[in-house]
């Protein structure tokens, strides 16, 4: 091997070390796909519940039950659906990412993943409290766009410490959320696009790009064909 080739090899290795020591690269595309599916199911479920709730409310007014009681019921249902979706998405996301880390021989919990989580946490916690304030002031219409905006900010912030593609996903979420603030009445639809469709698209794209997803798929179809 010539001297130049050796230097080139060293440079490639140094580059990889710099990446690996600062970025958490085991983030799995499947985590995104899973989170997207959870969001779509959650949104569909919420749509069903609110439609039933609407009929109930009508019945409540007929029997002169207070409007406030049914509104509280709506908020409890909204928050519990949202929490269930969040927990399911995080648990599945953790599962796929931990699996990928194992396959790559890396640890899930190390300096780079801690840094990533911290970068995500600050905008997310701020956004969470902001949304509680929206609920408190009954500005329910701004809830869905606000979650999108803060989630987008968190992703953009976190993209410094993980796969770069996460940054453009963050920008899309922010754009979606901001436009939702001026178009009232489509909160759930925007939310389903932002957390559902975009997650699935990005997750699938990242799965193909970084996880060798296409190879897996080809192997899988070959195995089934035989």
């Amino acid at each position: 091997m010539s001297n130049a080739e050796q230097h080139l090899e060293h440079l490639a290795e140094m580059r990889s070390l710099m990446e690996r020591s600062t970025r958490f690269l085991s983030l799995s595309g499947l985590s995104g796909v899973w989170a997207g599916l959870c969001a779509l199911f959650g949104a569909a479920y919420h749509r069903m519940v609110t439609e039933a709730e609407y009929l109930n409310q009508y019945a409540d007014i007929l029997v002169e039950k207070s409007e406030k009681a049914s509104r509280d019921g709506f908020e409890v249902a909204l928050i519990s659906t949202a929490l269930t979706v969040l927990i399911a998405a995080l648990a599945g996301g953790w599962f796929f990412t931990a699996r990928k880390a194992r396959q790559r021989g890396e640890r899930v919990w190390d300096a780079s993943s801690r840094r990533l989580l911290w970068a995500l946490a600050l905008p997310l916690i701020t956004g969470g409290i902001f949304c509680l304030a929206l609920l408190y002031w009954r500005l329910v219409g701004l809830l869905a766009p606000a979650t999108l905006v803060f989630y987008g900010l968190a992703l953009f912030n976190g993209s410094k410490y993980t796969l770069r593609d996460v940054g453009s996903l963050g920008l899309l979420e922010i754009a979606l959320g901001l436009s939702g603030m001026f178009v009232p009445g489509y909160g759930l639809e925007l939310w389903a696009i932002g957390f559902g469709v975009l997650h699935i698209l990005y997750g699938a794209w990242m799965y193909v790009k970084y996880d060798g997803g296409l190879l897996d798929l080809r192997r899988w179809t070959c195995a089934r064909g035989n």
Partner: protein
Amino acid sequence: MKDIITHLNPVFDHRNRLGIMSVLSVNDWVDYNTLKELLNLTDGNLASHMKPLEAAEYVEYRKQFVGRRPQTTYAATEKGKAAFKEHLDALEHLLKMNTGK
């Protein structure tokens, strides 16, 4: 040509030392075990490559206790970062000349 060779720093004349400096140049403080795992080195190996870097004052270390276990963390000094950059510049120059031929 001779000029470039003098810019290539002999302290960095090993891939593991280049590796150590790479990690330290993009991180604030890195503990011994993380370095060991990243570079895929044994205890003795990492220590022996750390010594010349310490001697040249390119890296500094801190020893502290995490719980009961002593932990050593490393960082690149300003001098080390400057020397590393100069070394990389020289390498780049060398490679450009090579491909230019």
